[in-house]
Every structure is written in structure tokens, then in C-alpha cells.
């Protein structure tokens, strides 16, 4: 065994036994540092004869390479062990509950959601959205809509009135969104296709009536729209809104002052365990009123009833929301109880669309 072999054995043993980065560095400096044992050997090469150098050079360089390699390997092993130790110490309890994200907590009220659903459906049939004020004149809420003077709807027990003005005229809180039909027909020439969602008010308060509620009306005026088209529009709407493939509807002749002929529409359904299902069953449920716009109403809007014609319909938004989503009672709609809103409301990113489905 040469002195080189002894030195190598000694150094490799020291490398292997270095327990941490600091002692390994001490070994490296002792061997490969400026004054290290291996460095000193390398310095001797310069003074050697070429033959001697040729013989000793590879031996000493080989020694240096092996020691360097051993140190690098040992350093990596030490780093690995240190990481393992660190990782073993770094632990979180991933089961700790988070606060609910704002987007998961927030809710859209069912009325807003249902208006968005209705709008998506009718937009596809070419309807735009018209709106009007909640405080209306008697003329627009009643007279222009062909309500005769003295009609019971004009009474205090049916309609909210504001205080009379200097001329004794009393404005009303609109009892339906129909005044917007008049506003639309007076502002815009046919063809007209609008839906009119909005707040409406009647002097009524019990389990199924609140003094404020929401209604959407539809109005189509052109030179051809008739009851056959009305039936199609309403059937398509009901199928799309209730998200069923087929609905059976019953049109019953009825009476409204502002349409002639008029009809009420029932939809066939089944009631099982408090859940209403459309497209099946034997029960009939009244869901809307409709008819051909009364010639007097057209005339009141400056349209010749012999030239223009069309239909209108009205649906209770709160009511169809209750039918679709199963709210048993109307009153909590307006009580702002966060438990109710959380249960019946919709998440902010559940935006109804026809391409994605109204309810996703």
C-alpha cells in the first residue's frame, strides 16, 4: 500500500463520516483547500521530472477526482437527509375547515334568477325587454287599457292610490305591468315584440297574496300575429321554462278588459309528495292569462285595429318561481331571511342561458 492509497482511504473515510455540511466542508478544506493534503500533493507535481510526473500525475489527479466526487456525493446525501428531516417537521392539518368563499356564500334572489331565465327564453324568440314606472297614471293603468269608469279594480280595496294632486288626480301603484304595453305601443311602431317584467301592487295580503308581487307580460304587435302564434309562444315558453320535453296546456276562454278574445291557460301536471311535475299527471294548474289585444287598446295607442293586431299575455313571476322551485309560500320572498335566501337563492355564477341550460 502506497502513501497515496493510505491518504485516499483516510480521506474517503472522513468524507463518509462527515455528519453535516460543516464537517464535510472541513474535510474538503483539509483535502482540497489551498493547504489541503491533496492540494499539497498536486503542488509537488511541478517540481518533478517529466517521467516521474507522468507516473505520479495520474495517480495524484485520480486521487483528487475521487475525493471530489465522494464529497459531492456526500453533500447531496446530506442535503437529501436534511430535506427529509425538514419535510418530516413541516405538517399542516389539511382537514381544518376554510371560511366559505364569497362566491359560494352569495345568492341571487329567485325572482332575479327567474326574470333572467324568462328573458333568455324570450330573447331567443326575438323579444326585447321593456320597462316602465311603478307609479302610474290612472289613464295608463286603467283607461287606456279599456277599463270602464267605475270598474271595481279602480277601487281603494283593490288598488293603491297616492295622495291626490292639486287637480284632484290620483296616481296609482300599477296593478299590472300592462301600462308598459301602452307606453311601448305609443313610443314604437310595430312590429313589436317585448316582454315586460316588473313589480306590481294590489291591495291584498294573505297566504297566497302579497301587496307587492312581480309580473311579466308579453306583447306582440304586427300585421299577422294571431291566437295560433300565441299558443305556440306560450307552449314553447312553458317547455323551456319548466325544462320539460312536452307540456299539455288548456286554453279556456276568459275575460280581461284589455284583450278580446281572452283566455286563461292551465297547464297539466301531477302532484306527488308536494312536488309539482309538468308534462305528466291529470291535474290542471292555472298559470297565466292572455288574449288578442283589444281593438280599443290598439286605438288608444294610435294603431288602427284593422291594420295592426297582436297578442298579450301575463304571468306571475313569483308564482312560476314557486311552481318550478317548490316554494310553498309567497310571503318569505320579501322577508329577506338569509336562511330562506340561502336555501332558495342561486349562486352568482349560475347565469341562466339557453346554450348551457337554464339551471345548468
Amino acid at each position, binding site marked *: 500500500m502506497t502513501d497515496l492509497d493510505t491518504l485516499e482511504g483516510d480521506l474517503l473515510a472522513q468524507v463518509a463520516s462527515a455528519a453535516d455540511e460543516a464537517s464535510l466542508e472541513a474535510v474538503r478544506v483539509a483535502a482540497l483547500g489551498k493547504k489541503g493534503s491533496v492540494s499539497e500533493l498536486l503542488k509537488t507535481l511541478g517540481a518533478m521530472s517529466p517521467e516521474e510526473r507522468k507516473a505520479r500525475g495520474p495517480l495524484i489527479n485520480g486521487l483528487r477526482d475521487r475525493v471530489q466526487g465522494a464529497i459531492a456525493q456526500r453533500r447531496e446525501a446530506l442535503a437529501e437527509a436534511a430535506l427529509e428531516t425538514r419535510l418530516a417537521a413541516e405538517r399542516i392539518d389539511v382537514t381544518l375547515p376554510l371560511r*366559505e368563499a*364569497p*362566491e359560494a*356564500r*352569495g345568492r*341571487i*334572489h329567485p325572482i332575479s334568477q327567474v326574470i333572467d331565465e324568462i328573458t333568455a327564453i324570450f*330573447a*331567443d*324568440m*326575438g*323579444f326585447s*325587454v321593456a*320597462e*316602465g*314606472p*311603478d*307609479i302610474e297614471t290612472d289613464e295608463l293603468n286603467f283607461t287606456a287599457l279599456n277599463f270602464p269608469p*267605475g270598474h*271595481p279594480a279602480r277601487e281603494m280595496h283593490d288598488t*293603491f*292610490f*297616492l*295622495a*291626490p*294632486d292639486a287637480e284632484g288626480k290620483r296616481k296609482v*301603484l300599477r296593478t299590472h305591468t300592462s301600462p308598459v304595453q301602452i307606453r311601448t305601443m305609443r313610443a314604437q311602431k310595430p312590429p313589436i*315584440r317585448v316582454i315586460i317584467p316588473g*313589480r306590481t301592487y294590489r291591495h291584498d*295580503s294573505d297566504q297566497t297574496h302579497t*301587496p*307587492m308581487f312581480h309580473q311579466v307580460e308579453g306583447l*306582440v304587435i304586427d300585421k299577422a300575429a*294571431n291566437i*295560433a*302564434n300565441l*299558443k305556440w309562444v306560450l307552449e314553447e315558453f312553458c317547455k323551456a321554462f319548466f325544462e320539460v320535453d312536452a307540456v299539455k296546456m288548456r*286554453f*279556456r*276562454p*276568459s*275575460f280581461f278588459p284589455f284583450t*278580446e*278574445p*281572452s*283566455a286563461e291557460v292551465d297547464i297539466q301536471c301531477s302532484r306527488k309528495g308536494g312536488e309539482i311535475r309538468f308534462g305528466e299527471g291529470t291535474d290542471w294548474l292555472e298559470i297565466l292569462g292572455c288574449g*288578442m289585444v*283589444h*281593438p280599443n287598446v290598439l286605438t288608444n295607442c294610435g294603431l288602427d*285595429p284593422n291594420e295592426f293586431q297582436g297578442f298579450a299575455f301575463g304571468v306571475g313571476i313569483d308564482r312560476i318561481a314557486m311552481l318550478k322551485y317548490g316554494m310553498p309560500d309567497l310571503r318569505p320572498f*320579501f*322577508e*329577506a*331571511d*338569509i336562511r330562506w*335566501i340561502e336555501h332558495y337563492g342561486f*349562486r*352568482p*355564477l349560475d*347565469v341562466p342561458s339557453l346554450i348551457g341550460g337554464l339551471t345548468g
Partner: protein
Amino acid sequence: MKFTLSWLKDHLDTEASLDVIAETLTRIGLEVEGVEDKAAALKPYVIAKVLSAEPHPNADRLRVCSVDAGDGKPLQVVCGAPNARAGMLSVFAPPGTYVPGKDITLSVGNIRGVESRGMLCSGAELGLGDDHDGILDLAQDAPVGTPYALWAGLDDPVIEINLTPNRPDCASVLGIARDLAATGIGALKSSAEPQILGEGPCPVAVSLDVPAASGLAPHFALRFVRGVTNGASPDWMQARLRAIGLRPINALVDITNYMTFDRGRPLHVFDAAKVAGDVVVRLARAGETLKGLDGRDHALGGDMVVIADDDGVESVAGIVGGAASGCDAATTDVLIESALWNPANIAQTGRRLGVITDARYRFERGVDPASTLTGLDRATQLVLDLCGGTPTEATVAGAMPESDHAIDFPWSEVRRLAGLDLSRAEMTVTLEALGFRVSGTGDRVKVVPPSWRPDVEGNADLVEEIIRIAGLDRIEPKPLPPLAGITRPTLTLIQKRTRRAKRALASRGLMEAVTWSFIPHDDAVLFGGGGADLVLANPIASELSDMRPSLVPGLLRAAQRNADRGYPDAALFEVGQCFADDAPEGQTIRAAAVRRGSANLAGGGRHWDGTAPTVDAFQAKADALAMLAALGVPTGGLQVVAAGADWLHPGRSGTLQFGPKNQVGHFGEVHPRVMKALDLKGTLVAFEIVLDAIPAPKQKPTKTKGAAMLSDFQPVSRDFAFVVGRDVAAGEIVKAAAGAERKLVAGVEVFDVYEGAGVPEGSKSVAIAVRLQPVERTLTDAEIEAASARIVAEVGRKTGATLRG
């Protein structure tokens, strides 16, 4: 409107079943509310004989009866009725029978150790009245084994229809029969109108003391009938009146009620002995009163039309008769009145008196004007038939209003409006069956509506008549022609903003509320409203009295209600209408949100990661700005100014504006005085923005976003700590720093605000980090130093700030 099947068949010759009749009624617009068929409901109940009734061995009050229900096999029944006795005839229900009065289904029972196979029933148990005194005790000739309902005459189904106000003609069984006959399910039975000639003139004269032009009393007829006997009306009439919920009184009264329902012709019968002198139809005088047949005292006046004699008012026209001149068993001479009144006037009088009668119901909708005299004769005939007596001639005032309202009707209207092709023959048959007169043969015909159809004015009404009888189900749905091209966006700017605002606020953990448009007056005043033009004249409740000037009070109260229920950290918003005045322009769409307690964006309440702090004005500001950002509002021009609306804490609130003349909203902590007035507890912050006030985005010719300016050079950040007066707004420092080097400064953040030791009294330290972004080349140290110096100088010039030493 109620009637029975047999009554209908007086007028309609039909083989149609009850179900078909009911379906047809609904189909033609006479919506069936309900059909009560007692014979079907009570089918299992049979007449039975109690053979024996022995005391129950184990119960004093019970009896063990042996009952023969018609098949000759005695059945053992335990009965608790005190009147159960051997030999009586009663009503028996076998096991399996549903008992409507008790809402149970019978089974074979064991009552105190004795088996009971069925039940002997009281009237109440059958759902017939409230008689709980004991089991039914039937006449001895009642046939054992026969269904009780059949024997008791309860086998006439009662149909109730929901009559629309335009169809007064169908407030009569005859009118309903006519509509049904038009559908072809039966034939209308014709009955000749009786003609009463009468002996001699009516001894009571009539004068109409209302202006003829008023139309208040166009036609009035009166007839005297001498020597009547006013007993009970016949059983068939009593049974029908009872079936529709009327109480038989005496023959004369029952005849008027019967005429009301059978013919839609209300009449009045006075006891002639109680009428003094002649009769005058006039307006009631102020202060006059009438004790009505309804037992109430009615204060009269105004435009009410009355029938009066020398003693004063005897009846209110078309609504209610007077008790003083009513008929009773002692009545021998009568005056029968048949008249026509003004529908609007009757409706108004009826509402003022608060009286709802079957007569008012018909007169205010429109009684057939041609029925005044025919109705009088028919009623007279019934009086003669049921009560005997001798009639006089009628005395008549006024006349039937002229009406020959012919409609020029093109048959094509049915196709135009309804989209239904029908043959002219079918349409003609329908109109004629309904009583319309059709003349002419071409494309256009003349159609004259019958006198009993005041609702028919023009073409559209005729189309309705034709298609409702044909059946709306015959109209095939036809697509509404699609508009050309792809659906265009249809929402207006405010509609889009309304929808986006809701989604944006909900995504911040807020719950959308829909609160009343009307709020308490005091709340309205606190929030800048309460004006006289926005107060309801007839609120449904005192706390729902004023149209809201703001969404905030409703949300604040809602948050407090949730807190009172045990949910202190409510975060609510609403987007909806508010009212500045009663004009359409005074109505705005606003968005508002409130946060209570610790309802932070990140969540509320205690948590392992740190308890949520109490909400502050900055939470409200963050909601407002996030919503504006979501609306795509360029916030560059948005200014935040100290102090908000009056309902906000003056030192902890701000105003959002696009220039001083365009305030769009406010945010902050709710004013302690408002908290106290609304009885709110804890901490509440809120914002409210008027969506209509936000400037519309600039219209640009293209949708291009412009080139992105992404510099290749390293940005540098420099921190500055300024000392300024404590009232200087941090926003001013930020603005000044950004303005000092417009080309270089890419952002300014405030990272520390400090008052206290080391900072002079009345001053504060505000530390900002300014990010400099070179565009052309990397900045040299000298350039950075120069820029920093300009920033310090500019901030100092604008705010008086000095660099903190």
C-alpha cells in the same frame, strides 16, 4: 253562480253526462269551480231499520243495535246516540265507508268488547248541516235498503261556475243552457213567455223622478196582485234554492229568488198593504235611511236610486228591499216590481252600502233590458200558480232603451285574429244558437247581438263567441315567424347594469334581498324621502306607507331582523327601484348593500385562522368599487370624497362622484342617530349607488382594446414616508405623487399610515411605495434620484407634506 243538474235540464234537452257537461262549461269559458254530487259521495249510505237497541254490557252510554240494512240479515252495530231505539229508521254505513263529517273510513270495530259492523249516522257525519243531536230519525215510510241521498232528494248534483264579469247573461240557468246548446251537446228547450192580461189598471201609480237622460232608471213596471196566499213554496222549488245555498222563506220571496237564478231577472215584491200611496223612483235624500230585508240599517244619500212611497224609502233600487214593506205569511195583496237600472250606479251604490245581493250582482253586470216586462209576466204567472190571486194590468214608466247595434262582420276576422279556419255554416250556426241575428250572405254579414249580451261590441267579440264555442283546442299552435338573422342583444344599458350589479354583489358573499317598495314614513324621512306625493292614500299597513327613497332602510331593518333571529353577520344587497317623486323620471334603479357585525368579504365570526374583525366603512367602499368595476365603469374619473349622505357617520363615510355635479352614491358606517331611530344594534355599514347616474361608456367605432404597452425594462420601486397634517387626505398624496412624473409612475400604494410617538401632534405619517416603469431604457441612479426629488417636491407643494426624518 250555482245551479243543479236537473235545473239545467229544465232548459237543456241533453243526454250528456255530468262530466261532459262540466268539461264543456270550462271549455267555453264558464269555468267550473266545483261539482258537488252528494249522491255519488253518499252512495254507500242506505236507509236501515233499527230492529233492536239493547244496553251495552260494558258502557252506560252505548247501545248494541241490531240493524236491517235491506238485505234481511241483521247486523250488529254499537251506537252512542241517545235517540237510538228499536223500530226507528235511520241511515247506515257499512265498514269501508268514508265518513265526510269525521274524515275517517269505517272498519269493523270492537267497542268495549262488542263487535260493531258499521255505523248509524247523524246528519253532521254525512256532511249535511250541524245537527249533532243524534242519528238521523227518518219518516216511517222511508224505504229500507235504498240509498239515503236518493230518497232525500240529494241526488241532484250542484255545479258552481266562476262567472267572468262580462257575462251577466250566464248569471241565469237559462243563459248557461243556451251556451251549452250552442256547443251541440243538447237542445235549448223553448218555453213560451206567459202573457198576463190582468183585470183593470194597477191601483198604484208610478213616476220616474230621475232625469231621463241620466239613464239611472230607464224602465220600471209594477203590477198589483190581489188575494194571494203566501205559504211555503213547493218542495221542488225549495230543494233547488237550498241546493244552491239559499234559504227558502215563503212562496213570494222564493219566486223572486228563483227568477233571479233561473232567468237572471231580479224582481221585488212589496206587500201592497204596507205601501202608502203611489210609488216614485227618485234619488235618495241626504239623511234618509232604510231598514233592509238583510236586517241592516242603511244610510242613504248621494246618487243612490230608491223606490219610495208616501212613507218614504221602501227599497234601494236593484240592491235590497225594505223590511217594512216585505211579504210574510199575512200578505194578501202584492205589488210586483220589475225594473231596469244603471249598472255603474248600482255598483257604486252597492259598494257604498257594503251590500252584496244576488240582485246587485246581476244589475251591476247588466240585466237583459228586454226582460222588464216579460220578467214581470213570468213572475206574475208563478205567483198565480203558487199563491193564487188576481192580477191587474201592469203600470209602466219609461221604456226599454233602444238598441239595434249591428256589427258589420267580415267572416275573415276569425282567421285573421284566431288563426282558425271554420266554415261559414258552422260560424252562422254558432252565432244564431247564441241568439245573434245574422243577415247577408257574402264575405261580410250584419250581426245583431241579442239584448242579453251587453259585452258584445265589435268584430273581436264575435270572433271570441265563434272560437270559444268551436273550442280553443281546435286552434293549432303556429310558430311566430323568426326575426331575420341572429338574435340581437336586446338589453338596454341600465338593464345590463342591473343584472351585472346583482351578480357582482352576490359574488362578494352578499345575499340578494327583495324588500317592499313601501316603507314606514319615518324611515323615508330619515333617508331623504317622505314627500307628500309619495305617501300612499290607502296603505295596507301603517309601516308600509311611503314609497322608498332609498334601498338602505329596508336592508338595514332586514339585517337587524336576521340578527334578532340569531344570525348577527348578515350581508344583504338589493338592486331595485327608488322614488324621488311620483313622476316616471323620479324613479331610479339603485344598488345597495349592507354588512352587519363581522360579515367581511372573507367571511364572518370566529375562525382558527383569525377572528373576523367588525365591518367598517372600507368594506362598504370595497363593495361599491368592486361593483362599479364589474359594470365596466371606467373608475379613472371616479372621485372619492370625505363625508357621505346624511344617514351616514359624517367622519366615517364618503361620496362617490364623477365630478362635484355628478354624485353617484355613498358608502360608510351608518349614522348613530339612524341606528337609534331604526332601533339597530351593533355595527352596520352600507353603500348605495344610483345606477342611472353612472355615466354611459363612450361609444367607440370598433371593439379594439388598443396595443398593450409591455416595457422590456426593469421597474424600480421607491418608498417615501411623509409627515402631513392629520386632515390631509391620503388620496391627495397619492394623486400628487402620480402627477409628479406622469410618464414614469406606474403605480402608487399607501403601505403605512401612522399617528403617535415620533410624529408631531396633529400630524400623521403616510408611507407610499411608488413604482417607476421606464419605457425607453433602464433608469440610471441619477434619473431615479431626480424623479424621487420631483415626487417629494410635488407632494410637498400639494399637501404640505415633508419627508419623515
